[in-house]
Protein backbone atom coordinates (compact mmCIF):
# COMPACT_ATOMS: atom_id res chain seq x y z
CA UNK A 1 0.00 0.00 0.00
CA UNK A 2 1.26 3.49 -0.84
CA UNK A 3 0.01 6.93 0.09
CA UNK A 4 0.85 9.65 -2.39
CA UNK A 5 0.19 13.31 -1.69
CA UNK A 6 1.33 16.70 -2.77
CA UNK A 7 2.75 19.20 -0.30
CA UNK A 8 3.61 22.50 -1.92
CA UNK A 9 5.39 21.62 -5.14
CA UNK A 10 6.62 18.28 -3.85
CA UNK A 11 5.07 14.86 -4.43
CA UNK A 12 5.51 12.66 -1.38
CA UNK A 13 5.20 8.88 -1.51
CA UNK A 14 4.82 6.93 1.71
CA UNK A 15 5.22 3.19 1.39
CA UNK A 16 2.93 2.21 4.19
CA UNK A 17 4.25 -1.20 5.21
CA UNK A 18 8.00 -0.55 4.89
CA UNK A 19 7.83 3.00 6.25
CA UNK A 20 9.93 4.23 3.31
CA UNK A 21 9.45 7.84 2.20
CA UNK A 22 10.13 9.09 -1.32
CA UNK A 23 9.93 12.46 -3.05
CA UNK A 24 9.54 12.85 -6.78
CA UNK A 25 8.00 14.86 -9.62
CA UNK A 26 4.49 14.47 -11.04
CA UNK A 27 5.45 11.89 -13.66
CA UNK A 28 7.31 9.64 -11.24
CA UNK A 29 4.48 9.97 -8.75
CA UNK A 30 2.02 8.84 -11.40
CA UNK A 31 4.20 5.89 -12.38
CA UNK A 32 4.49 4.78 -8.74
CA UNK A 33 0.71 4.91 -8.36
CA UNK A 34 0.04 3.08 -11.63
CA UNK A 35 2.68 0.38 -11.15
CA UNK A 36 0.99 -0.66 -7.91
CA UNK A 37 -2.07 -1.73 -9.91
CA UNK A 38 -0.74 -2.56 -13.39
CA UNK A 39 2.10 -4.39 -15.08
CA UNK A 40 5.07 -2.45 -16.45
CA UNK A 41 3.82 -2.22 -20.02
CA UNK A 42 0.37 -0.98 -19.03
CA UNK A 43 1.95 1.48 -16.58
CA UNK A 44 4.01 3.08 -19.35
CA UNK A 45 1.03 3.20 -21.70
CA UNK A 46 -1.17 4.90 -19.14
CA UNK A 47 1.60 7.33 -18.17
CA UNK A 48 2.05 8.40 -21.79
CA UNK A 49 -1.69 8.98 -22.04
CA UNK A 50 -1.51 11.12 -18.93
CA UNK A 51 1.68 12.96 -19.97
CA UNK A 52 1.60 12.92 -23.81
CA UNK A 53 4.72 15.05 -24.13
CA UNK A 54 6.86 12.88 -21.86
CA UNK A 55 10.11 11.38 -23.12
CA UNK A 56 9.63 7.56 -23.31
CA UNK A 57 13.26 6.91 -22.40
CA UNK A 58 12.88 9.01 -19.27
CA UNK A 59 9.73 7.13 -18.38
CA UNK A 60 11.67 3.90 -18.73
CA UNK A 61 14.34 5.28 -16.39
CA UNK A 62 11.75 6.16 -13.80
CA UNK A 63 10.10 2.78 -14.12
CA UNK A 64 13.47 1.10 -13.58
CA UNK A 65 13.94 3.10 -10.38
CA UNK A 66 10.48 2.05 -9.22
CA UNK A 67 11.23 -1.62 -9.93
CA UNK A 68 14.53 -1.31 -8.05
CA UNK A 69 12.86 0.24 -5.01
CA UNK A 70 10.21 -2.48 -5.06
CA UNK A 71 12.88 -5.18 -5.22
CA UNK A 72 14.59 -3.55 -2.22
CA UNK A 73 11.38 -3.66 -0.20
CA UNK A 74 10.98 0.13 -0.25
CA UNK A 75 7.87 0.18 -2.42
CA UNK A 76 4.79 -2.04 -2.35
CA UNK A 77 6.10 -3.83 0.75
CA UNK A 78 3.92 -6.70 2.00
CA UNK A 79 1.59 -6.58 4.99
CA UNK A 80 3.15 -7.10 8.43
CA UNK A 81 2.97 -10.64 9.76
CA UNK A 82 0.01 -10.49 12.12
CA UNK A 83 0.86 -13.77 13.81
CA UNK A 84 4.43 -12.86 14.70
CA UNK A 85 3.47 -9.39 15.89
CA UNK A 86 0.42 -10.38 17.91
CA UNK A 87 0.48 -9.48 21.61
CA UNK A 88 1.82 -12.36 23.66
CA UNK A 89 -0.78 -12.09 26.43
CA UNK A 90 1.95 -12.21 29.05
CA UNK A 91 0.35 -9.54 31.23
CA UNK A 92 3.60 -7.58 31.47
CA UNK A 93 3.08 -4.03 32.76
CA UNK A 94 5.76 -1.42 32.16
CA UNK A 95 4.08 1.93 32.79
CA UNK A 96 1.61 3.41 35.26
CA UNK A 97 -0.24 6.68 35.31
CA UNK A 98 -0.56 7.46 39.01
CA UNK A 99 -3.49 9.75 39.69
CA UNK A 100 -2.01 10.92 42.98
CA UNK A 101 -4.66 13.60 43.34
CA UNK A 102 -8.16 13.71 42.01
CA UNK A 103 -8.44 17.14 43.54
CA UNK A 104 -7.48 20.12 41.44
CA UNK A 105 -6.92 23.80 42.12
CA UNK A 106 -8.47 24.65 38.76
CA UNK A 107 -11.79 23.54 37.31
CA UNK A 108 -11.07 23.84 33.61
CA UNK A 109 -14.25 23.46 31.62
CA UNK A 110 -12.78 21.13 29.01
CA UNK A 111 -10.85 18.83 31.39
CA UNK A 112 -11.27 15.11 30.65
CA UNK A 113 -9.55 14.00 33.86
CA UNK A 114 -11.51 12.48 36.70
CA UNK A 115 -11.89 14.88 39.60
CA UNK A 116 -13.22 14.72 43.13
CA UNK A 117 -13.24 17.03 46.09
CA UNK A 118 -13.71 14.68 49.02
CA UNK A 119 -11.01 13.58 51.42
CA UNK A 120 -10.40 10.39 49.42
CA UNK A 121 -9.16 12.42 46.49
CA UNK A 122 -5.48 12.21 47.48
CA UNK A 123 -3.43 9.02 47.08
CA UNK A 124 -1.80 7.78 50.26
CA UNK A 125 1.83 6.73 50.48
CA UNK A 126 0.68 3.15 51.09
CA UNK A 127 -1.23 3.05 47.80
CA UNK A 128 1.65 4.73 45.94
CA UNK A 129 4.14 2.21 47.29
CA UNK A 130 1.77 -0.65 46.47
CA UNK A 131 1.56 0.69 42.91
CA UNK A 132 5.35 0.62 42.58
CA UNK A 133 5.41 -2.94 43.96
CA UNK A 134 2.62 -3.93 41.53
CA UNK A 135 4.58 -2.47 38.63
CA UNK A 136 7.81 -4.22 39.54
CA UNK A 137 5.98 -7.49 40.23
CA UNK A 138 4.34 -7.46 36.81
CA UNK A 139 7.19 -6.04 34.74
CA UNK A 140 8.81 -9.35 33.81
CA UNK A 141 12.17 -8.77 32.18
CA UNK A 142 11.47 -5.11 31.31
CA UNK A 143 14.18 -2.90 32.80
CA UNK A 144 12.77 0.53 31.98
CA UNK A 145 9.63 1.28 33.96
CA UNK A 146 7.66 4.50 33.76
CA UNK A 147 5.44 6.32 36.19
CA UNK A 148 3.55 9.48 35.34
CA UNK A 149 2.18 11.55 38.20
CA UNK A 150 -1.15 12.85 37.02
CA UNK A 151 -4.47 14.00 38.39
CA UNK A 152 -6.32 16.23 39.13
CA UNK A 153 -3.31 18.29 40.05
CA UNK A 154 -0.43 16.13 41.30
CA UNK A 155 1.37 18.99 43.03
CA UNK A 156 -1.48 19.05 45.55
CA UNK A 157 0.02 15.78 46.78
CA UNK A 158 3.71 16.51 46.27
CA UNK A 159 4.81 14.91 49.52
CA UNK A 160 3.43 11.56 48.36
CA UNK A 161 5.03 12.05 44.94
CA UNK A 162 8.43 12.51 46.61
CA UNK A 163 7.98 9.54 48.90
CA UNK A 164 6.88 7.26 46.05
CA UNK A 165 9.89 8.36 43.99
CA UNK A 166 12.24 7.69 46.91
CA UNK A 167 10.72 4.23 47.41
CA UNK A 168 11.05 3.41 43.69
CA UNK A 169 14.68 4.60 43.62
CA UNK A 170 15.49 2.22 46.45
CA UNK A 171 13.57 -0.59 44.77
CA UNK A 172 15.20 -0.12 41.37
CA UNK A 173 18.64 -0.66 42.89
CA UNK A 174 17.54 -3.93 44.44
CA UNK A 175 15.49 -5.23 41.54
CA UNK A 176 17.55 -4.25 38.49
CA UNK A 177 15.01 -1.76 37.18
CA UNK A 178 15.27 1.79 35.88
CA UNK A 179 12.39 4.10 36.77
CA UNK A 180 11.60 7.13 34.64
CA UNK A 181 9.20 9.58 36.19
CA UNK A 182 7.10 12.22 34.50
CA UNK A 183 4.62 14.68 35.97
CA UNK A 184 1.83 16.68 34.37
CA UNK A 185 0.89 19.95 36.08
CA UNK A 186 -1.24 23.02 35.56
CA UNK A 187 1.66 25.10 36.89
CA UNK A 188 -0.10 26.92 39.71
CA UNK A 189 2.08 25.42 42.44
CA UNK A 190 5.40 25.50 40.61
CA UNK A 191 8.21 26.91 42.73
CA UNK A 192 11.98 26.69 42.99
CA UNK A 193 11.87 23.80 45.45
CA UNK A 194 9.79 21.73 43.06
CA UNK A 195 12.09 22.65 40.18
CA UNK A 196 15.05 21.34 42.15
CA UNK A 197 13.23 18.07 42.85
CA UNK A 198 12.05 17.80 39.25
CA UNK A 199 15.52 18.39 37.85
CA UNK A 200 16.90 15.66 40.05
CA UNK A 201 14.19 13.05 39.61
CA UNK A 202 11.77 13.67 36.76
CA UNK A 203 12.67 12.64 33.23
CA UNK A 204 9.94 14.81 31.78
CA UNK A 205 7.55 17.47 33.03
CA UNK A 206 4.42 18.35 31.06
CA UNK A 207 3.16 21.88 31.71
CA UNK A 208 -0.34 22.95 30.72
CA UNK A 209 -0.55 26.29 28.95
CA UNK A 210 -2.95 27.03 26.11
CA UNK A 211 -1.12 30.00 24.62
CA UNK A 212 -2.35 33.57 24.38
CA UNK A 213 -3.77 35.03 27.59
CA UNK A 214 -7.34 35.24 26.31
CA UNK A 215 -7.19 31.69 24.93
CA UNK A 216 -5.70 30.25 28.10
CA UNK A 217 -8.06 32.13 30.37
CA UNK A 218 -11.15 31.09 28.38
CA UNK A 219 -11.09 27.52 29.72
CA UNK A 220 -8.41 27.56 32.40
CA UNK A 221 -10.14 29.71 35.01
CA UNK A 222 -8.32 32.95 34.24
CA UNK A 223 -5.05 31.47 35.45
CA UNK A 224 -2.71 32.86 32.78
CA UNK A 225 -1.17 35.61 34.90
CA UNK A 226 -0.57 33.20 37.77
CA UNK A 227 0.77 30.36 35.66
CA UNK A 228 2.74 31.78 32.72
CA UNK A 229 5.55 33.43 34.76
CA UNK A 230 5.94 30.30 36.88
CA UNK A 231 6.20 28.11 33.78
CA UNK A 232 8.79 30.47 32.28
CA UNK A 233 10.87 30.34 35.46
CA UNK A 234 10.54 26.57 35.71
CA UNK A 235 11.60 26.04 32.09
CA UNK A 236 14.57 28.32 32.55
CA UNK A 237 15.69 26.27 35.55
CA UNK A 238 15.01 23.08 33.60
CA UNK A 239 17.97 23.77 31.30
CA UNK A 240 18.45 20.99 28.75
CA UNK A 241 16.24 18.53 30.62
CA UNK A 242 13.06 17.30 29.00
CA UNK A 243 9.81 19.19 29.30
CA UNK A 244 6.78 19.89 27.14
CA UNK A 245 4.34 22.75 27.12
CA UNK A 246 1.01 21.10 26.44
CA UNK A 247 -1.75 23.24 25.08
CA UNK A 248 -5.27 22.29 24.15
CA UNK A 249 -7.05 23.87 21.23
CA UNK A 250 -10.79 23.95 20.72
CA UNK A 251 -13.05 25.30 18.00
CA UNK A 252 -12.63 28.66 19.73
CA UNK A 253 -8.95 28.86 18.67
CA UNK A 254 -8.43 26.90 15.50
CA UNK A 255 -5.75 29.54 14.79
CA UNK A 256 -3.64 27.78 17.43
CA UNK A 257 -0.38 28.50 15.61
CA UNK A 258 -0.69 31.96 17.13
CA UNK A 259 -0.74 30.30 20.54
CA UNK A 260 2.38 28.30 19.75
CA UNK A 261 4.10 31.50 18.60
CA UNK A 262 3.02 33.16 21.82
CA UNK A 263 4.54 30.33 23.83
CA UNK A 264 7.77 30.76 21.89
CA UNK A 265 7.72 34.49 22.67
CA UNK A 266 7.74 33.49 26.34
CA UNK A 267 11.01 31.61 25.81
CA UNK A 268 9.38 28.17 25.62
CA UNK A 269 10.67 25.82 22.93
CA UNK A 270 9.28 22.30 23.44
CA UNK A 271 5.67 22.74 22.45
CA UNK A 272 2.66 20.50 22.04
CA UNK A 273 -0.87 21.45 21.09
CA UNK A 274 -3.63 18.86 21.30
CA UNK A 275 -7.15 18.86 19.89
CA UNK A 276 -9.72 19.03 22.69
CA UNK A 277 -11.30 15.73 23.70
CA UNK A 278 -14.93 16.10 24.72
CA UNK A 279 -18.46 15.13 23.83
CA UNK A 280 -20.02 16.31 20.57
CA UNK A 281 -22.49 18.48 22.43
CA UNK A 282 -19.85 20.70 24.05
CA UNK A 283 -19.93 24.14 22.39
CA UNK A 284 -16.15 24.12 22.10
CA UNK A 285 -15.95 20.62 20.54
CA UNK A 286 -14.18 20.39 17.21
CA UNK A 287 -16.53 19.60 14.34
CA UNK A 288 -16.06 18.47 10.78
CA UNK A 289 -16.58 22.05 9.63
CA UNK A 290 -13.49 23.07 11.65
CA UNK A 291 -11.21 20.63 9.84
CA UNK A 292 -10.20 22.94 6.95
CA UNK A 293 -8.97 25.66 9.29
CA UNK A 294 -7.14 23.16 11.52
CA UNK A 295 -5.53 21.62 8.44
CA UNK A 296 -4.42 25.07 7.30
CA UNK A 297 -2.82 25.66 10.70
CA UNK A 298 -0.92 22.37 10.54
CA UNK A 299 0.38 23.36 7.10
CA UNK A 300 1.33 26.82 8.32
CA UNK A 301 3.30 25.21 11.12
CA UNK A 302 5.50 23.40 8.60
CA UNK A 303 6.71 26.66 7.08
CA UNK A 304 7.22 28.20 10.52
CA UNK A 305 9.23 25.26 11.82
CA UNK A 306 11.64 25.03 8.88
CA UNK A 307 14.86 26.24 10.51
CA UNK A 308 13.14 27.28 13.75
CA UNK A 309 14.68 27.01 17.23
CA UNK A 310 11.56 25.41 18.72
CA UNK A 311 9.73 22.22 18.01
CA UNK A 312 6.23 20.88 17.79
CA UNK A 313 5.71 17.54 19.51
CA UNK A 314 3.82 15.87 16.69
CA UNK A 315 6.35 16.82 14.02
CA UNK A 316 9.32 15.28 15.83
CA UNK A 317 9.68 12.22 13.62
CA UNK A 318 12.83 10.19 14.03
CA UNK A 319 12.74 8.36 10.74
CA UNK A 320 15.85 6.25 11.24
CA UNK A 321 15.50 5.44 14.93
CA UNK A 322 11.78 5.69 15.42
CA UNK A 323 9.46 3.03 16.79
CA UNK A 324 9.84 -0.61 15.77
CA UNK A 325 7.12 -2.49 13.91
CA UNK A 326 5.88 -4.16 17.10
CA UNK A 327 5.21 -0.79 18.73
CA UNK A 328 3.58 0.49 15.55
CA UNK A 329 1.18 -2.42 15.72
CA UNK A 330 0.45 -2.45 19.45
CA UNK A 331 0.40 1.31 20.11
CA UNK A 332 0.26 2.97 23.50
CA UNK A 333 -0.33 -0.24 25.44
CA UNK A 334 -3.38 1.01 27.29
CA UNK A 335 -5.09 -1.77 29.21
CA UNK A 336 -2.10 -4.06 28.86
CA UNK A 337 1.38 -2.71 29.57
CA UNK A 338 0.13 0.77 30.54
CA UNK A 339 -2.47 1.21 33.29
CA UNK A 340 -3.84 4.07 35.37
CA UNK A 341 -4.12 3.97 39.14
CA UNK A 342 -6.68 6.00 41.13
CA UNK A 343 -5.99 7.48 44.60
CA UNK A 344 -7.55 4.41 46.23
CA UNK A 345 -5.49 2.01 44.12
CA UNK A 346 -8.03 0.96 41.50
CA UNK A 347 -6.66 0.01 38.07
CA UNK A 348 -8.06 1.28 34.76
CA UNK A 349 -6.84 0.81 31.18
CA UNK A 350 -5.53 4.39 31.10
CA UNK A 351 -6.09 7.83 32.60
CA UNK A 352 -9.01 8.50 30.25
CA UNK A 353 -11.01 5.48 31.50
CA UNK A 354 -10.71 6.36 35.19
CA UNK A 355 -14.09 6.31 36.94
CA UNK A 356 -15.86 4.20 34.31
CA UNK A 357 -16.97 1.05 36.20
CA UNK A 358 -17.24 -0.89 32.95
CA UNK A 359 -13.47 -0.56 32.61
CA UNK A 360 -12.38 -1.16 36.21
CA UNK A 361 -9.64 -3.79 35.95
CA UNK A 362 -8.63 -4.54 39.55
CA UNK A 363 -6.38 -2.81 42.03
CA UNK A 364 -2.70 -2.53 42.90
CA UNK A 365 -3.06 -4.88 45.87
CA UNK A 366 -4.82 -7.79 44.14
CA UNK A 367 -3.59 -7.08 40.62
CA UNK A 368 -5.62 -7.34 37.42
CA UNK A 369 -8.81 -9.14 38.39
CA UNK A 370 -10.44 -8.90 34.97
CA UNK A 371 -7.93 -10.51 32.61
CA UNK A 372 -10.60 -10.71 29.91
CA UNK A 373 -10.59 -6.92 29.77
CA UNK A 374 -6.81 -6.88 29.43
CA UNK A 375 -7.10 -9.46 26.64
CA UNK A 376 -9.66 -7.32 24.84
CA UNK A 377 -7.26 -4.36 24.87
CA UNK A 378 -4.41 -6.61 23.75
CA UNK A 379 -6.45 -7.67 20.74
CA UNK A 380 -7.21 -4.06 19.87
CA UNK A 381 -4.42 -3.23 17.43
CA UNK A 382 -4.00 -2.03 13.87
CA UNK A 383 -3.92 -5.55 12.50
CA UNK A 384 -7.33 -6.32 14.00
CA UNK A 385 -9.23 -3.02 14.01
CA UNK A 386 -11.63 -3.11 11.06
CA UNK A 387 -11.40 0.60 10.25
CA UNK A 388 -7.58 0.48 10.20
CA UNK A 389 -7.28 -2.31 7.64
CA UNK A 390 -7.13 -0.03 4.60
CA UNK A 391 -5.64 3.04 6.30
CA UNK A 392 -2.29 4.25 5.00
CA UNK A 393 -1.36 5.82 8.35
CA UNK A 394 -1.97 2.82 10.55
CA UNK A 395 1.69 2.01 11.24
CA UNK A 396 2.24 5.60 12.36
CA UNK A 397 -0.79 6.10 14.57
CA UNK A 398 -0.85 2.51 15.88
CA UNK A 399 -4.63 2.34 15.93
CA UNK A 400 -5.25 5.57 17.77
CA UNK A 401 -6.55 6.16 21.25
CA UNK A 402 -8.93 3.54 22.68
CA UNK A 403 -10.61 6.11 24.90
CA UNK A 404 -11.18 8.48 22.00
CA UNK A 405 -12.65 5.57 20.02
CA UNK A 406 -14.97 4.72 22.90
CA UNK A 407 -16.15 8.28 23.35
CA UNK A 408 -16.72 8.82 19.63
CA UNK A 409 -18.19 5.46 18.63
CA UNK A 410 -19.28 3.78 21.86
CA UNK A 411 -16.74 1.03 21.36
CA UNK A 412 -12.96 0.80 21.91
CA UNK A 413 -12.76 -1.07 18.61
CA UNK A 414 -14.55 1.77 16.82
CA UNK A 415 -13.08 4.91 15.30
CA UNK A 416 -12.77 8.56 16.16
CA UNK A 417 -12.91 9.69 12.55
CA UNK A 418 -12.24 13.37 13.17
CA UNK A 419 -9.18 12.39 15.21
CA UNK A 420 -8.06 10.12 12.36
CA UNK A 421 -8.39 12.98 9.88
CA UNK A 422 -6.30 15.31 12.03
CA UNK A 423 -3.69 12.65 12.76
CA UNK A 424 -3.22 11.91 9.07
CA UNK A 425 -2.81 15.59 8.29
CA UNK A 426 -0.25 16.00 11.08
CA UNK A 427 1.67 13.03 9.71
CA UNK A 428 1.67 14.39 6.16
CA UNK A 429 2.96 17.70 7.52
CA UNK A 430 5.59 16.08 9.71
CA UNK A 431 6.94 14.12 6.75
CA UNK A 432 6.88 17.24 4.58
CA UNK A 433 8.91 19.06 7.21
CA UNK A 434 11.41 16.21 7.26
CA UNK A 435 11.76 16.40 3.49
CA UNK A 436 12.13 20.17 3.62
CA UNK A 437 14.93 19.96 6.14
CA UNK A 438 16.62 16.78 4.81
Amino acid at each position, binding site marked *: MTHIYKFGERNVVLDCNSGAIHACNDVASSIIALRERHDAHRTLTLTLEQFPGADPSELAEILAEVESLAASGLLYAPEPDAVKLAPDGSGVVKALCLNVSHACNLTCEYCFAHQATDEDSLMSVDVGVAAIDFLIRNSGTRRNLEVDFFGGEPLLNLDVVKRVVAYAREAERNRGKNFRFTLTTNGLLLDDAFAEFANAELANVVLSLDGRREVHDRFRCGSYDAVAPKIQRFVEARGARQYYIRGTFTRANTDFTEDLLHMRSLGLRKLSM*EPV*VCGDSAPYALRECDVPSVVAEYERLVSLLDGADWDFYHYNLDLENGPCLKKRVTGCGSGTEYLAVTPDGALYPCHQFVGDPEYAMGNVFDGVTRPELRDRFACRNVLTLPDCAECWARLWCAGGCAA*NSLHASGDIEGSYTLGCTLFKKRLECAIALKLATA
Partner: protein
Amino acid sequence: MNKHITTLKTRELCAEKGGCGECQTSCQSACKTSCGVANQPCEAAKSDE
Protein backbone atom coordinates in the same frame (compact mmCIF):
# COMPACT_ATOMS: atom_id res chain seq x y z
CA MET B 1 21.40 7.17 -5.96
CA ASN B 2 18.27 7.45 -8.05
CA LYS B 3 17.94 10.24 -10.57
CA HIS B 4 14.19 10.72 -10.42
CA ILE B 5 13.09 9.50 -7.00
CA THR B 6 14.66 10.73 -3.77
CA THR B 7 14.37 8.33 -0.85
CA LEU B 8 14.76 9.41 2.76
CA LYS B 9 16.69 7.07 5.01
CA THR B 10 14.14 5.39 7.26
CA ARG B 11 13.97 2.44 9.59
CA GLU B 12 13.19 -0.67 7.54
CA LEU B 13 10.12 -2.21 9.09
CA CYS B 14 9.47 -5.21 6.89
CA ALA B 15 12.11 -7.48 8.35
CA GLU B 16 11.13 -6.84 11.96
CA LYS B 17 9.45 -9.58 13.95
CA GLY B 18 9.24 -8.12 17.44
CA GLY B 19 10.49 -5.46 19.83
CA CYS B 20 12.31 -5.23 23.14
CA GLY B 21 9.49 -3.34 24.89
CA GLU B 22 11.89 -0.99 26.67
CA CYS B 23 10.64 2.16 24.97
CA GLN B 24 8.57 4.94 26.46
CA THR B 25 4.81 4.57 26.58
CA SER B 26 3.62 7.18 24.13
CA CYS B 27 0.98 8.81 26.34
CA GLN B 28 3.63 9.47 28.99
CA SER B 29 5.52 11.82 26.71
CA ALA B 30 3.21 14.80 26.28
CA CYS B 31 -0.06 14.22 24.55
CA LYS B 32 -2.26 12.33 27.03
CA THR B 33 -5.10 12.37 24.52
CA SER B 34 -4.08 11.68 20.98
CA CYS B 35 -1.87 8.61 21.13
CA GLY B 36 0.14 7.90 18.00
CA VAL B 37 3.62 6.45 18.05
CA ALA B 38 5.15 8.16 15.02
CA ASN B 39 7.28 10.51 17.08
CA GLN B 40 8.38 8.02 19.72
CA PRO B 41 12.07 7.15 19.82
CA CYS B 42 13.32 3.56 19.90
CA GLU B 43 15.08 2.67 23.14
CA ALA B 44 17.32 0.10 21.46
CA ALA B 45 18.42 2.65 18.86
CA LYS B 46 19.14 5.19 21.63
CA SER B 47 21.27 2.64 23.45
CA ASP B 48 23.29 1.96 20.31
CA GLU B 49 24.19 5.60 19.82
